[in-house]
């Protein structure tokens, strides 16, 4: 199980997966936006999206949980 957390304060621009989706290592899960820059958040392992904690338009703080890959 891998927890994916935000590295910085950012707005959630795009959510590209849903709970239950199978993902491969390196797949883009979510795209954050901070300071006019897009920051893709990638799966670091293959697995299933167990939890998805953000929606488009949300603001995440540093350390906030984005998703759990099981």
């Amino acid at each position: 199980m891998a927890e994916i957390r935000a590295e910085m304060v950012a707005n959630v621009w795009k959510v590209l997966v849903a709970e239950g989706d199978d993902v491969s290592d390196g797949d883009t899960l979510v795209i954050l936006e901070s300071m006019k820059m897009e920051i893709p958040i990638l799966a670091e392992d293959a697995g299933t999206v167990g939890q998805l904690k953000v929606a488009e338009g949300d603001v995440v703080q540093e350390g906030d949980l984005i998703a759990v890959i099981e």
Partner: protein
Amino acid sequence: MFESVLIANRGEIARRVIRTAQRMGLRAIAVYSEADAKAPYVREADDALLLGPASPAESYLDMDRVLEAAATAGAGAVHPGYGFLAENSEFARRVVDAGLVWVGPAPSAIERMGDKINARNLMADVGVPVSPGSREPIVSVEAAVAEARRIGYPVMVKAAAGGGGIGMAVARDEVTLRPAFEGARSRAARFFGDSGVLLERYIEGARHVEVQILGLADGRVVALGERDCSVQRRHQKVAEETPSPGVSPGLRARMLDAAARAGEAIEYRGAGTVECLVAPAEQDFVFIEMNTRLQVEHPITELVTGIDLVEQQLLIASGEEISFDPTAAPPRGHALELRIYAEDPRRFLPSPGEITAWREPSGDGVRVDAGYDAGDMVTPYYDPLLAKLCVHGEDRVEALERARAAVASFRIEGPKTNLPFFDELLGDAEFVGGDYDTGLVDRMRG
């Protein structure tokens, strides 16, 4: 001369314009979002009006709110700074229609240069060199493939209405062109509201060199020297210097002449910048685009010429003569600008947060244009520029020495900053040697 000016911007550039406006005896009016209520520029302005929430769309990009603030404050003129509405011809037109003075070129000049394809065609038609590229917007991936074959790889893919490096990518073959085109098209639509894309031949090992121009009230256009902006990450400038170590006197003369010609072709008024790519070995250049506003890196031109460019903008906008003799303003010495960003110095990822400590360097030849101070919050809503650290020396060696000392004594705590990157850059053999190009930062990180 008008008696007051509203600065439709934030951060360091709002502060910088306010300083000159007040020195000239004008009332400086700031506008701000809720996120910037405690910013230094809001405190320093003579008047300050709240625009709305932090989101740029509801504050600095909201034309209705900015114009309403100008009316409420009784502003005589509007200075747009750079970014936000600075190159929005509709905004410029609405400022003029409201009976206010627009501190910038005519809306028609903004329009003609805002579309990069149109600008390229116009420059080619008046004899300014351009690299082989699209004469019309490219609307499909198949058309892009055909166009790239005609131009020849490698090609640069760009948003026609774009800026700030957003959506730009280099494609070396058809396989890399397809995703580059789709990426440019979606970003163009999202950031600029116009999905037009252009291709142009990519010049390997090029330097990015731009010329500062000033279109005077009497119709003359003068060129005030060049700036080398080849230190870039993600196609965005990080450090600039003048004069360029890669431009010979002969090339400089040709570039300045072409830039003035470019300005005259569109009857340009005020401060503008003609951006070019230079092939150092051939000492050749091509036009890439024109920025119809004050440039972020304008202070280095001010340091070597002794001219206050914002003062000239305000004088020209009010139809007055500039405050210096353009035939007798030779640049003196060497100047550098380092853009201090709130970002980590390895991967250059944004790092917002509260600034807990802030101490600026000082000393001979050091100028800091800062938008923040201790206690301020750096939010994710705007670009990561915290301050511009500028240094001037008698020559490049002295300027580099002063820059090293200034970087070492600049103290910012809270958000991560790229100050450690500048420590590296100022010790990098390629940069120090002067023979570098736009691939420098990638090589430092490769």
